[in-house]
């Protein structure tokens, strides 16, 4: 059974049909790509799945359970996590705090624990910190744990965001242009991290990406979106040779 299913999802902004009849089924352990020109509706699809907007039509099912219409914090704690195209980090907080925040709903100690440092708080903090550090280790940023993210280089900030998204222990991970603005060296590293996260957690990953090389290398199947509709779906080879995809990206041959 697919871990994430999206059926006939549509959404309008005013008179604009931003997403039209979007359909998706992902199994655990699959990496899917979502490509398309700017403004095609890729990020809107992410916003709809993660509950930032509630879709006007259609259904989003996580393990067969309907999640569309729920508040985004519920959807997040049920297992859908995401990153953002433009890094949305909490600039003056430390790397460790970013990852800890994902454990919010699991933190049990309250005021007394926080103020008097009870044993319960210590135990919980140790456990959460341990898990957080493990994750940072995997991302290769453990040594930066107590740094404020503001001071980190761009590539490291991307990893912090990825660590934060993984810390919620998701079943489905939505990555919105994880390689945007990266140099070739950072690019190779982030691809390795995505592969590792995929391998170790058995996640279903949906990836929005502009660099075709990255999508072609990572994804088993790719959807191409244009004007809110899927115009082509298939393996990387099929997509690469699909005339509709070439049209959407390069314009029709007859134009020039």
């Amino acid at each position: 059974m697919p871990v994430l299913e999206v059926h006939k999802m549509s959404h309008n902004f005013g008179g604009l049909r931003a997403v039209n009849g979007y359909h998706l089924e992902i199994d655990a352990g699959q990496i899917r790509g979502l490509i398309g020109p700017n403004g095609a509706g890729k990020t809107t699809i992410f916003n709809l799945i993660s509950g930032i907007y509630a879709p006007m039509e259609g259904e989003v099912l996580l393990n067969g359970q309907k999640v569309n219409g729920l508040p985004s914090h519920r959807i997040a704690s049920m297992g859908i996590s995401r990153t953002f195209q433009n890094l949305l980090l909490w600039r003056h907080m430390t790397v460790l705090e970013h990852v800890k925040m994902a454990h919010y709903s699991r933190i049990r100690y309250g005021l007394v624990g926080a103020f008097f440092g009870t044993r319960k708080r210590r135990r919980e903090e140790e456990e959460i910190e341990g898990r957080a550090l493990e994750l940072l280790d995997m991302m290769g940023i453990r040594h930066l744990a107590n740094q404020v993210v503001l001071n980190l280089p761009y590539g490291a900030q991307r990893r912090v965001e990825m660590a934060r998204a993984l810390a919620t222990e998701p079943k489905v991970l939505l990555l919105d242009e994880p390689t945007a603005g990266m140099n070739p060296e950072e690019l190779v590293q982030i691809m390795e991290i995505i592969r590792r996260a995929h391998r170790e957690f058995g996640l279903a990953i949906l990836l929005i990406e502009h660099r075709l090389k990255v999508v072609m290398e990572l994804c088993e199947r790719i959807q191409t979106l244009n004007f809110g509709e899927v115009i082509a779906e298939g393996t990387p080879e099929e997509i690469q040779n699909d005339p509709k995809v070439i049209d959407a990206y390069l314009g029709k041959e007859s134009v020039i």
Partner: protein
Amino acid sequence: MVIFLQNLVNALQWGSFYALIALGYSMVYSILMLFNFAHGDIFMVGAYIGFGVSIGLLALSSSGALAMPNWLILVLTILFSMFLTSFVGMIVERVGYRPLRNAPRASAAITGLMIGIILETGNLILMGARRVSFPSLIQTTTYTVGGVFVTNKKIMIVLVSLLLTLALHQFIRRTKWGMAMRAMAFDFAVVPLMGVPVNTVIALTFAIGSALAAAAGILFGIAYPVLDPYMGILFGWKAFVAAILGGRGSILGATLAGFLLGFTEIFVAMIFPSTLRDLIAYSIILLILTFRPHGFFGEPYSARLRL
């Protein structure tokens, strides 16, 4: 020198009120980019709730049903009134501000002013157009230290407000709610995706700000035992100035600026005729803001909840 020290003591007390109220402005602003203009009136409501609670406890105590020493009544009054006033803050948020979460900020500002007027006139209807006097819960004892008069009330007021500020600092630093508040101040959008129920955290922010304002109201009632429905207006505006001066969103800044405002007012009144007090004091503040438009700990174009 003695006069200077005497005024310093008075300024510390006066600044305590501003500092406690300014914290509420700052916290809410850092998270919602919204100045809660009803906050001064919540200070007033807090003072009145404190009045009601202390009268009730005194009656209970003197009836012999549950005899309590006065200091205990004072402590219970402060705690219980903070608790009750926090609900006033949460109701204001739920009814007044939450429906306007995505509306232009000007709409929210107008709403805040209207809520203020509702609280004032509501009080007028409930309590009638007369001033009430706050019961004197503790006897004033005056100590003389090198010619400077210090009362036990002044010491208590300054200590309680510092204690509450410290508690708030710890709350923001050490609890998960405080961590969420800081994160929401930096970037609101991602926080719910971490599984954080943001509406709960916002309600909590209003609750804490209002509780601190209530504490300020009771401390004010102890120092100046006359309450009237409009007492919150001027205090609210001045504490708002302190929040701006401290740097929007800065806990430390709001506290320091609150005290600085107290000092400025008291020392201006010491040197100049007291009718010119506000004119001169706020000209000085204006001058400071000319050179530091973002306040002491503010950053340009941002308001982050900082420690």
